[in-house]
């Protein structure tokens, strides 16, 4: 089986190398190429590799040819791949150092705004900031009971090793992974349509994302508890819920609280971004001021966000350190 994977990796690697070379040539000469000859060529090269018993796939699966890196064909191939990737990347990303230095004058407005923020707007901006902090806090609080309940069902060591136990475990885990991998900003766009632009949409977006990521963090914490007390309480004839109550929950309360505070910290940061697409709070204000090129107001907002995040970071770090000692 490993050899089949090795061959597949070789075909992909050669396909990538040939594709990159064709891409680079296309930048210089104007021509088009069918996919089929490329695939055929990589197949032929892979076959040659099989014959040589020295290829990338074999190297990955540990069938080393026993030669030094620079002397082996596979080592040489890796080097070529890295160089090609870098050159292609440079072209695709349209890197141009000249623009970087020439365009510096355009930022004068922003920099001026940053160093002379408009304090006349302090009050409305502070209220927008409060909106952000509160919506992040409520998103965290609403997410907590859901994540708490789900995390028990998503902990390998608590779910029985039966059909239903495994099904629930896999279902919750998959759901959490899916909801977490969709960025909060996408959820915000959905909820802006659903409940209308404003902090409520932002809160819902952050809540969904928080439930998913707290479920994962919590369930991993449960999986890492000391199993000894669970065994001991089981041995006394306690029921499953009693076992959770006495052997599991006491071990997880303080790490759970620590994670929750950390999540609030993250949610305040995310709320700023979510605000950009209509999720309310200071992010929304930032987007509006930036659209109207009022750089002095933008400067004020950026300072407010930076100070808030700095304070939250410090406070939550301290609180978490204390909680871990409990």
């Amino acid at each position: 089986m490993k050899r089949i994977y090795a061959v597949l990796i070789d075909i992909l690697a050669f396909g990538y190398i040939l594709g990159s070379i064709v891409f680079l040539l296309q930048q210089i000469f104007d021509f088009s190429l069918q996919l089929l000859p490329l695939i055929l060529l990589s197949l032929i090269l892979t076959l040659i590799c099989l014959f040589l018993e020295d290829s990338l796939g074999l190297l990955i699966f540990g069938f080393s040819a026993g030669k030094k890196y620079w002397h082996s064909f596979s080592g040489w191939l890796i080097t070529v791949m890295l160089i090609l990737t870098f050159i292609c990347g440079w072209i695709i990303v349209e890197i141009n150092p000249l623009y970087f230095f020439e365009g510096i004058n355009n930022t004068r407005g922003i920099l001026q705004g940053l160093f002379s923020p408009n304090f006349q707007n302090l009050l409305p901006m502070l209220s927008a900031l409060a909106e952000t902090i509160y919506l992040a806090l409520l998103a965290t609080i609403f997410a907590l009971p859901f994540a708490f309940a789900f995390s028990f069902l998503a902990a390998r060591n608590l779910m029985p090793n039966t059909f239903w136990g495994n099904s629930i475990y896999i279902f919750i885990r998959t759901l959490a992974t899916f909801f977490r991998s969709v960025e909060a900003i996408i959820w915000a766009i959905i909820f802006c349509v659903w409940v209308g632009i404003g902090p409520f949409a932002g809160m819902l977006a952050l809540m969904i994302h928080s439930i998913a990521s707290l479920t994962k963090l919590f369930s991993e914490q449960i999986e890492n508890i000391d199993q000894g007390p669970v065994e001991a309480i089981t041995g006394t004839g306690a029921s499953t819920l009693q076992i959770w109550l006495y052997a599991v929950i006491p071990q997880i309360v303080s790490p759970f609280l620590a994670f929750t505070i950390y999540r609030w910290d993250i949610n305040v940061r995310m709320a700023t971004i979510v605000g950009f697409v209509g999720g309310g709070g200071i992010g929304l204000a930032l987007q509006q001021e930036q659209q109207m090129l009022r750089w002095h107001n933008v400067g004020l907002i950026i300072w407010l966000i930076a100070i808030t995040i700095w304070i939250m970071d410090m406070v939550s770090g301290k609180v978490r350190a204390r909680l871990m000692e409990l």
Partner: protein
Amino acid sequence: MEFIKISNLHKTYPGGIKALKGIDLEVKQGEFLILLGLSGSGKSTLLRCLNRLIPSTQGSIIFQGKEVTTASQVNLRGIRRQIGMIYQQFNLVKNLSALTNVISGYLGYLSLSKSLYPLLDKELVNKAQKNLKRVGLEQMAEKKVRNLSGGQQQRVAIARTLMQDPQLILADEPVASLDPATADSVMRYLGELNRNDGITIICSLHFLSLARKYGSRVIALKDGNIVFSGSPSEIDPNRFREIYGEDAEEVDIV
């Protein structure tokens, strides 16, 4: 009726390791039975099969006339309530107080709603205090278990077991992570429970000296079989080598 009757007990772990290969054993009420044997000989597995913390693969265990291996969940909890267990690593919740840990031994007798605020139940707290006093830790009730020494933690575990009013205590190498002097004091508490309360004790040990001092009978396991059964004094250097292998030599503690 025998107190415990184990017949033809087998345990094969997933992955094919055969931990027990047909154990036949009878235990009388009031015995202090010592299990000897190398690590991996099946002592822990045998002890955990008795209260079905580990399900056995084949065979039967009758405890006070009830079959353990096939008992329903409800009946199993009733059986487990009668059987206390103490562990090498104490298995206490380290960030709870000694008192709460002791109370948790009584959970098998409590409904879920009653187990929510046990500290409000005066009778229960008194019972826990009394058991802590029996192991000489009445001063430590409010302390977090994490702040207690190893010997004190094992005594808290004994107090937790006493909350069950057990007929039988299983002890899985209760002194293996303690220093020799503390080990002897923990064994003394077990011996006292055996003599004064008539609690049957099955205890796995590594030290022959402790087995001779406290055991009324010794069972030796090797590769999942019983290779010796008799009184502790019958174990001479030859028997010892049969149990522990040719190169073994007895070391004395205490």
